[in-house]
């Protein structure tokens, strides 16, 4: 523990160092580490797919312990899709294994001469030839590595999409947990790094066993008593498909509609009754929101961990597909190729709308499942239409005049499933998120959970924060969620324990960390660390040329009201929220962190004017 593993792929060398104290005290771990590395080591002019980009895989200080749902890891690098800060995190069992091997983070630079994988067996670290793995999908890669090293190793790997530098390729853990966003898999591919295989067998002690275990039990009790625990543990994120349809925001036909005509065929209950076999958990998680599924009848036979809400929408309603079996098959293909389902599905949906509007000559029909599956093959191999789709929505739109308004991206990152017209806190969060069009930076579910006006006042000082359709009262709520969200991503605690159930609060995380690492953390310390991470990411993006004009949303959400449903006619007015957000953050009216703010947070300004 407390070690960094530095890997220089160009020179074929590795070395181990202690983690600087400042990293642990000020940036916690996980996303805090990956963003700190980017800020310190990556220049504005670094080509994301060049050997100069730095790929960091970081665990959190609670990884490997009984702390609830704390087994995640984050991969960070400069994004080939956005040219800005990129990162993606994932659950599963890889993060804890890396920590059991004795490393809190692996920092990878350079480019190997040929296909390579990194093998870590406790202290033994080796770069090995991966020629026999190159060209294989994620599933085969894992199988071959397990045959070589034993079933007890844990693996992250890229598929063909990462090898072929698709800018939204992901990195897969165990074949079904995706570090999915911003193209971290393409950066891994550009380094000729196919996989990291880890076996770890060292102990992770905690400073105060008794109080730590008592705190874990307390967190378990709070989680299980929360009203949303039952739904999430039973249906996982798929319950959100039902909630989205009910609120009129089930993104359909590239967000032209918020009600999906085939909703009944993809609802969580239908899924439960037809293809789901079991609920599964990530390491140390009592929520077990993952679902294992099997389709036995042709033509879409498949068996794997099933799709999440994001995939059910982006490869389902957003492209008009109402066949549950086809969506499961698409999910499996995307996982095997190592493709971000959000970016892939949204790119296909964009193409379909271009066709619908006659902006391109080719005819593509909404709901054509065969076409969607074919696109996934072609994107991963950059073949035919796949070469165009693989560029992502922003680059595609640049070549099709008249399509900007419905190109669903922010800063180049395709937008997730949630329709932000049905949640104004989400709208603000996605407009300003440091990795582009992303809901997880803020994830202000508080506005969606039918909280009372009194709860709104108690939590964020305003009753308006519980009404998802108004712009007022959202800024304070979003800033708190962003700061605490950065803490969760850095401690590597799943946000479904903190922003879906609201069971585990900053003081709980402070207690878990205090009892685990033996350093006193307060709630204020943690939220300051979260704010520090948000600010360092903002500074990195500004260095890379982002401007406040990029803090926006597609015109569809700003000017087009939904045609029907509870959110009928609603649009987003960002101008009502952005100035208050910037000042609430202590930034200038142009959205730049002030010198005073940076000094307060102990961030050294560098690389920006």
């Amino acid at each position: 523990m407390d070690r960094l593993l530095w890997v220089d792929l160009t020179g074929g060398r590795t070395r181990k160092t202690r983690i600087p104290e400042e990293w642990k005290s000020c940036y916690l771990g996980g996303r805090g580490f990956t963003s700190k590395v980017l800020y310190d080591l990556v220049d504005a002019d670094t080509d994301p797919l060049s050997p100069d980009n730095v790929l960091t895989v970081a665990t959190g200080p609670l990884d490997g312990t009984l702390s609830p749902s704390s087994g995640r890891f984050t991969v960070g690098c400069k994004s080939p899709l956005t040219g800005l800060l990129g990162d993606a995190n994932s659950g599963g069992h890889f993060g804890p294994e890396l920590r059991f091997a004795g490393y809190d983070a692996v920092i990878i630079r350079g480019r190997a001469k040929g296909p390579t994988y990194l093998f870590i067996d406790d202290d033994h670290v080796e770069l090995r030839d991966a020629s026999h793995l190159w060209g294989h999908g994620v599933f085969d890669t894992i199988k071959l590595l397990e045959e070589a090293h034993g079933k007890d190793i844990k693996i992250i790997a890229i598929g063909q999409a990462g090898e072929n530098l698709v800018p939204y390729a992901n990195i897969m853990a165990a074949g079904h947990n995706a570090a999915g966003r911003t193209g971290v898999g393409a950066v891994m591919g550009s380094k000729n790094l196919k996989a990291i295989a880890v076996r770890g067998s060292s102990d992770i002690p905690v400073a105060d066993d008794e109080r730590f275990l008592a705190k874990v039990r307390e967190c378990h009790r709070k989680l299980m008593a929360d009203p949303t625990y039952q739904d999430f543990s039973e249906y996982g994120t798929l319950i959100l498909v039902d909630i989205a349809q009910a609120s009129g925001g089930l993104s359909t036909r590239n967000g032209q509609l918020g009600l999906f005509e085939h909703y009944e065929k993809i609802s969580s209950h239908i899924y439960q009754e037809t293809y789901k076999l079991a609920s599964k958990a990530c390491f140390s998680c009592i929520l077990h929101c993952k679902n294992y599924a099997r389709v036995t009848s042709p033509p879409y036979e498949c068996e794997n961990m099933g799709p999440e809400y994001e995939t059910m929408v982006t490869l389902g309603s957003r492209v008009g597909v109402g066949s549950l079996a086809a969506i499961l098959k698409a999910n499996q293909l995307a996982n095997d190729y190592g493709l971000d389902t959000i970016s892939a599905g949204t790119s296909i949906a964009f193409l379909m709308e271009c066709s619908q509007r006659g902006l391109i000559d080719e005819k593509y029909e909404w709901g054509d499942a065969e076409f969607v599956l074919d696109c996934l093959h072609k994107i991963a191999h950059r073949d035919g239409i796949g070469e165009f789709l693989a560029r992502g929505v922003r680059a595609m739109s640049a070549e099709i005049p008249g399509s900007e308004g419905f190109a669903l991206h922010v800063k180049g990152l395709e937008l997730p499933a949630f329709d932000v017209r049905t949640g104004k806190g989400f709208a603000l969060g996605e407009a300003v998120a440091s990795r582009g069009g992303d809901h997880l930076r803020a994830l202000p579910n508080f506005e969606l959970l039918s909280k009372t006006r009194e709860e709104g006042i108690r939590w964020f000082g305003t009753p308006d924060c519980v009404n998802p359709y108004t712009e007022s009262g959202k800024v304070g709520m979003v800033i708190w969620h962003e700061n605490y969200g950065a803490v969760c991503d850095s401690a590597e605690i799943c946000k479904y324990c903190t922003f879906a159930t609201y069971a585990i609060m900053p003081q709980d995380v402070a207690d878990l960390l205090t009892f685990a690492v033996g350093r006193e953390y307060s709630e204020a310390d943690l939220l300051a660390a979260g704010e520090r991470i948000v600010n360092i990411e903002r500074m990195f993006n500004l260095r890379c040329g982002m401007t406040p004009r990029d803090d926006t949303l597609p015109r569809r959400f700003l000017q087009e009201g939904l045609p029907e449903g509870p959110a009928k006619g609603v649009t987003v007015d960002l101008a009502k929220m952005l100035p208050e957000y910037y000042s609430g953050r202590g930034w200038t009216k142009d959205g730049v962190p002030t010198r005073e703010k940076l000094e307060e947070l102990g961030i050294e300004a560098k690389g920006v004017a």
Partner: protein
Amino acid sequence: MATSASVDVLTRGNNWDIRTFNPEKCSGCRNCELACSIAHFGAFNPRRARIQVLRQGCREEIRVCNHCEDHPCIAACKRGALAWDDGEILVDDAACNLCGDCIAACASGGIRIFDETLLICDLCHGDPMCVKFCTTGALALKAR
């Protein structure tokens, strides 16, 4: 979802409650392994756990001593390092030379060696930590 419950009775110790395992309920979170390792070794390390959960597809398989009544592990030990005491297998670490004969004799795969230590579940003397930290109910105690 499949619902056919197949509950394996794991433990038949003389005085303690029976420990059962229902694979249909197991999510594979591995909290039982973590609870076991911290209870016995003061640190988290699944490889030190005397209980192990292995995922096969969507099914979790358990490896743990089920305290069976004929305990062939004891008969297999040529050095007298294992003894039966009121439902618990006692290990004399000084006498054990880690030969693995007991492991070969155990039909449930419940004995392992890690870090030169023979690992056999002692059911935490009747109050097993693995059950305490199992929130799905896959591991449970049943009064005899």
